[in-house]
């Protein structure tokens, strides 16, 4: 099932803010919102909540596109959906497939963190989003994001039995 090998075509740049389309907004925001809600509510519920939030935004794009911080608004929409669908106590668990490339203890260790710690660790340490980006998305203060990221990472390292400073020097 090999696709025809053709030269890549770069994606067109996103439109300016005055004429931003939903597609451009979606492309820019989808990874951040999906990862944030997946961190909070588990991959299945979080992804579903993110998809619902984007669907809502698409349906009401004329009105919502004027919002100053639409990603932050959709994060709150996603939170509402995620909380209602959350299946406690398991948020994250080792996936059904077997040959994954991460430590099997990682999902459980993430589940053991508080929601805000999990959110901050995944976005800041996992994906390298800035404290400002995470703060804007979540409505938390930058200092709070930083504290949650640091404390969460320490708990995660402890739960996964990581010792030494090789990773700590990189914030890991």
């Amino acid at each position, binding site marked *: *099932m*090999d*696709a*025809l090998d*053709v*030269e*890549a*075509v*770069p*994606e067109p740049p996103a439109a300016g803010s005055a004429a931003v389309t939903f*597609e451009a907004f*979606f492309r820019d925001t*989808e*990874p951040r919102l*999906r*990862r944030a809600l*997946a*961190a909070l509510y588990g*991959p*299945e519920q*979080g*992804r*579903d909540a*993110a*998809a*619902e939030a*984007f*669907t809502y935004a*698409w*349906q009401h794009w004329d009105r919502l596109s004027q919002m100053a911080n639409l990603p932050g608004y959709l994060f709150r929409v996603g939170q*509402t*959906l995620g909380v*209602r669908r959350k299946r406690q106590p398991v948020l*994250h668990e080792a*996936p*059904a*497939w*077997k*040959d*994954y*490339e*991460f*430590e099997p203890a*990682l*999902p459980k260790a*993430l589940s053991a963190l508080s929601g805000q710690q999990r959110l901050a*660790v*995944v976005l800041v*340490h*996992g*994906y*390298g989003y800035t404290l400002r980006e995470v703060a804007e998305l979540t409505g938390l203060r930058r200092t709070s994001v930083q504290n949650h990221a640091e404390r969460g*990472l320490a708990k*995660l*390292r402890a739960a*996964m039995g*990581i010792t030494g400073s090789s*990773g700590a020097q*990189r914030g*890991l």
Partner: protein
Amino acid sequence: MRREVCDQIRDYVDTAAPAISLAELAERRTVGRRGLGRRPLPPRRGTFGAVTGAMVAGGAVAAGLTLAGGAPARPADVGIRLSAAMVHQVTTASSEALASAGHVVVTFSAPEPAGTAAHVSGTIDITFSGHDFNSVSRLPQPNGSASQRKLVVRVVNGQVYTLGIFGAPSRRQQWHHFSNYTESGRAVPDPRRLLQVLQPDAGFEVVGSQLIGGVQTKHLRATQLTDLPASLMSSLTFVSVMGPQQLTALDVWVDSHDVVRQMGMTFSSRSPQGRLAWHQTIRFLDIGKPETITAPAQYVNQGTTNG
């Protein structure tokens, strides 16, 4: 530790919660919402007819419909192993429903082409109508930048067209017609071939229920993948990986009409860097919805512009 924690977090989150596509949102918009929940799709006439026909064909088939009904899986359903007739019913109903037209979105997380342990992710969006296809692939840039590259391939009446920029960078993007490309079946893989993986020997069991695109589905999982024919492998993966591959996990979600709504597949292979694993999720959308795929009005054919 196998890898740095930050890399593992990325792998875990992006694999377990793959990227959402616009096509998926479009499906949700079509389905609509009831409060914060969602209602299932109304019965599709074409599929209903197909299922009804299958029911008439044999009493054993009806057992499949009972099992794969639209209600959430009852605890009694979980753990039930599908009989050969049930698996056959899913294959038949899905083949009938997808025979005319459909739309699939493949989301994959795969090892980098270099065969390193690093993973890349992307989507392949395929619309098909009969034997005509339109494929839009969004893949990571080779240089590792955050932007994506897009590949568009269209097959109409066996002729292959690609949208791209060929030659000097200053040339504009346009359609190209490959009149000498005789293997149009390889230009865009036919998603319907994935149904071949529904083998009775795979030992499918009901493991639960789940909403997929607003539709209540039964979640089936294969328990005996070693029994799948090796010849199937080349039909299953949308990702090119060197060396022999093995299907190590297979999940299938079927709706109340026994039509496959989603598949999840995990593959592994061996490389000099060790064992590689990758995952692809295939979502079936717009099942049976009429599509019109036409050849580009203008294209470049062996250096000349047509139209």
